[in-house]
């Protein structure tokens, strides 16, 4: 059962893993240019495991290391994980603390979104999420190390639309999360707030701001907190 769920999660993440690999190779090239050893890069991959944050870390990697600035930048970029992790609560309901502590490390945007889409179709195991995390970790490590040792797998990913793979995958998953007309207003508010915040603020604050702003919209329609018709119970 455990192995089946993990394998399913791993397989479900394979399409997006291709672009994770390609972008990893670019990070590997940049890291090599900065004189970061492949071992340090591997340590970073395994311990931080957050793509956008690692790009910023490598970008800021100049002697003497601005330790505090890098830490704050990572905080600003990864703050979205608070919301992402919070939304995983129903899936982890009833899990032991140890399992939560071990599995949460391998939560990335990709396997989170794929797991949430799966959850809308029916019950989903935490091992599905974890298997997906292993797939992304494997692609990320292979890509970065290949880029570091051999050069970029793809020189200019944009030319092949590989930057759009992330957008397309997440758009596809978004349609699975559609709960009907009641989502229209929250989603429009979320998208609008995110674009405005992205224009006004640095880092990835736009994800948090858009997510919260959109999430607050249903409260206008249900100020008493009465359950809405068709709402998913968990």
């Amino acid at each position: 059962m455990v192995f089946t769920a993990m394998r399913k999660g791993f397989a479900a993440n394979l399409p997006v893993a291709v672009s994770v690999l390609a972008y990893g190779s670019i990070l590997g090239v940049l890291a090599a240019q900065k004189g970061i050893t492949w071992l340090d890069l591997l340590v970073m991959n395994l311990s931080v495991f957050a793509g956008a944050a690692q790009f910023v870390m490598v970008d800021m990697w100049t002697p003497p290391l601005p330790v505090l600035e890098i830490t704050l930048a990572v905080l600003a970029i990864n703050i979205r994980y608070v919301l992402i992790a919070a939304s995983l609560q129903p899936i982890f309901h009833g899990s032991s603390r140890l399992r939560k502590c071990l599995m949460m490390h391998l939560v990335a945007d990709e396997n989170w979104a794929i797991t949430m889409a799966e959850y809308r179709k029916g019950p989903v195991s935490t091992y599905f999420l974890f298997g997906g995390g292993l797939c992304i970790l494997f692609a990320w490590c292979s890509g970065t190390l290949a880029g570091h040792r051999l050069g970029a797998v793809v020189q200019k990913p944009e030319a092949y639309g590989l930057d759009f793979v992330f957008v397309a995958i997440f758009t596809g998953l978004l349609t699975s999360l559609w709960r009907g007309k009641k989502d229209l207003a929250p989603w429009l508010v979320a998208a609008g707030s995110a674009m405005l915040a992205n224009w006004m603020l640095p880092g990835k604050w736009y994800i948090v701001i858009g997510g919260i702003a959109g999430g607050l919209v249903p409260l206008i329609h249900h100020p008493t907190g009465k359950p809405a018709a068709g709402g998913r119970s968990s």
Partner: protein
Amino acid sequence: MMETVSGPSVYLTIGLAAGVTYLLRIGGLMLAGRFPNSGRIKHFMDALPGTVLISLIAPGIASAGLCGGIGALMTATCAYRTGNLLLSMLAGVIPVAAMRYFGLAPG
């Protein structure tokens, strides 16, 4: 030969970045577990996956311009009709790549 960084500051930096990231991941889950799964909080939490995901991609679609809008629309339509993620991804990525190849879109 450029100056490279080595020594304890490397591991301090990686360690702090890893620690902060892990605390955000585990903190969000622990925090959500403390809230009651009912009423207004439930409405907020139930809306969250969709609103976070759309916030994640909206600026990316906007920055890809008209070609991004077309690609996203193709993907969404295909995903809605077929439910096949790989096919839907290709339905969005191929037009974007083609438009860029023929110089019809910035890339």
